[in-house]
């Protein structure tokens, strides 16, 4: 904690950053995801893929590929066991995420995660975006930390986790559940688990894959969820409002170009990181200005 607070000291002024050429911003980056978020996402990728591979042959048993997969993976008993273990990991991941959010908001008193809550601007942004697509508006809307699509992506997964985890547990423990709830719940959960899975996979394979990896600006692969970093230049385009805010409020870090990658696991909210030689070049550029002024 201590180290982080120290690190986020204005070592480059907003003016100095504004004076940097666009090319320099390719080498600077924004730390968008901290270590917890990256671990959470990796747990999710792993368990999600395992769930899809073991789940889809169960949903579509008449498809030959699914039958083959089922056999290769050792039959329905093994497949179900792996599915349940992966489900357990994903549920744990969800709990981990909730604990992380709660800790950040309630204990650290940081409002960062709350920015994920949808607001009126998101609706306006969505409308503006469609207008822009259709040529009715010349500029796409300017986004803050989370675009409306990212929020949709997050909440879709959030909702999906609740439905899938909940319904999965219900059909895993039918005797226990029917102690409290009517029996029909079991079949409803069975149905929901199967259909929501289809929805989740469609969502991930279409929206998430396209907007995160396949879209022309990031194609073919966007590694930021693994590295935590997004190039500052792209960040300025995609999240201009947040970027400006970070620069204005001095959440900027200058690090030795060949030094270890800062910051540590607990960096949240994000910072913009500049290699130190960029600072040197701007310092001289900025330094010259007062002279000419004088």
């Amino acid at each position, binding site marked *: 904690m201590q180290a982080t607070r120290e690190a986020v000291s204005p070592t480059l002024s907003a003016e100095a950053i504004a004076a940097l050429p666009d090319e320099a911003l390719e080498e600077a980056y924004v730390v968008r995801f901290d270590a917890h978020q990256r671990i959470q996402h990796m747990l999710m990728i792993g368990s999600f893929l395992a769930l899809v591979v073991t789940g889809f042959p169960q949903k579509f*048993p008449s498809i030959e590929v699914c039958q083959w997969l*089922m056999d290769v993976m050792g039959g329905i008993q093994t497949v179900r066991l792996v599915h349940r273990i992966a489900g357990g990991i994903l549920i744990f991941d969800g709990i981990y995420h909730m604990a992380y959010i709660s800790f950040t908001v309630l204990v650290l008193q940081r409002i960062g995660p709350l920015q994920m809550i949808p607001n009126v601007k998101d609706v306006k942004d969505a409308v503006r975006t469609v207008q822009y697509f259709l040529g009715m508006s010349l500029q796409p809307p300017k986004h803050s930390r989370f675009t409306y699509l990212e929020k949709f992506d997050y909440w879709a997964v959030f909702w999906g986790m609740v439905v899938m985890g909940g319904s999965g547990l219900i059909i895993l423990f039918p005797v226990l559940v029917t102690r409290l709830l009517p029996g029909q719940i079991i079949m409803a959960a069975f149905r929901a688990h199967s259909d929501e899975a289809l*929805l989740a996979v469609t969502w991930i394979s*279409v929206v998430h894959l396209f907007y995160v990896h396949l879209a022309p600006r990031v194609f073919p692969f966007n590694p930021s969820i693994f590295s935590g970093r997004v190039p500052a230049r792209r960040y300025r385009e995609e999240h201009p409002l947040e970027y400006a805010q970070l620069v204005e409020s001095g959440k900027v870090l200058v690090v030795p170009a060949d030094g270890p990658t800062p910051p540590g696991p607990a960096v949240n909210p994000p910072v913009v990181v500049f290699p130190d030689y960029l600072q040197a070049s701007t310092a001289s550029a900025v330094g010259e200005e007062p002279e000419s002024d004088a």
Partner: protein
Amino acid sequence: MRSANWPRWLLVWLAMGSLVLAVLLVLVRGGLASAGQTSEAPVSAQAPAGMSDDECLRCHSDPNASLSLPSGETISLYSDPAVFRRSVHGDKLNCADCHVRNQTVPHPSLNVVTARDFHRAEYELCKRCHFENYTRTLDSMHFDVVAAGNPFAPVCTDCHTAHSVTRLTESRVQIAKTCSQCHSTIYNDYVESVHGSALQSEGNPDVPVCTTCHGVHNIQSATTATFRLASVDMCAQCHANKELMDKYGISSNVLKTYLNDFHGKTVGFYQKQSSQVWAETPVCFDCHGVHNITRVDDPNSPVIKENLLPTCRQCHADAGANFPSAWLSHYEPSLQKAPIVFFVKEYYRFLIPLMIVGLIMHISLDLWRLARNR
């Protein structure tokens, strides 16, 4: 010197006599051998058999004719020709056609100890004509029982009889009766069941008899994983047949609804799997009963609402009162039958296409704008 004293005519007669005797011996032996050969030829060739039925019946029409075996048992040697003539073989075969080894009198000695040995030796005669069905019995679980050391597992003649053979397919009632000779407990359950009682009372042609489910000559064990998994489709042969089920006002949707439900899904996977495993998951007869199966509205039915909980508890020991309604009783979810399930189903039926269309539109528009801006 002494021979010279014998009259010449006597020597001539002796020589001629022994020559004739030698020729006769050769002829008789040759004749016997050729008789043996023809008897091994197919019966359809109607080879001149050695003995006529009349010759056989000279002894075998005596109701007291019997044979004592080394085991102390006595077997009857009596055969009623009238019974045989009424049998399915009556107009085709004579005694000697089957009993080929007994064409000489006295018959060759028997190498048997018990009566069962005798019957097990004699039934082999059937295979000369009925080779295919004989071979099938070698694949049956009855034969496995023999192989395991029990000689009393049925052979051809136990079910079909030896001499009064009838076409069993002519009488479905007779089929069940035949099996009941050994499987009497199961038979008693069966005749009380919805299937058996319909067979007994009205000779119903649609209900299954023993062989409908268990097969005929190559009867398989009903306690294997293979039989268990296949049993679902076995029941479905009739119960998924709309035409047949409509006749009795029964749903023909039962297989489909079963396979869509949690139990059936699992069984469906086991069926497709290459390695055979014992399915703990219930199949039709686990809930409905096996030979004692009743109508689903019978007060004693294990699947009627009042009796369902104990049925569930066979596997789900701790199941509570709400538990049985988790099973939709072979109904498709609908507003009346399972409204919650129905709403969930409809919700996704609406949401999934909406979502997919929305997403594809968003992406297409995005790409279109990108292309236009270049």
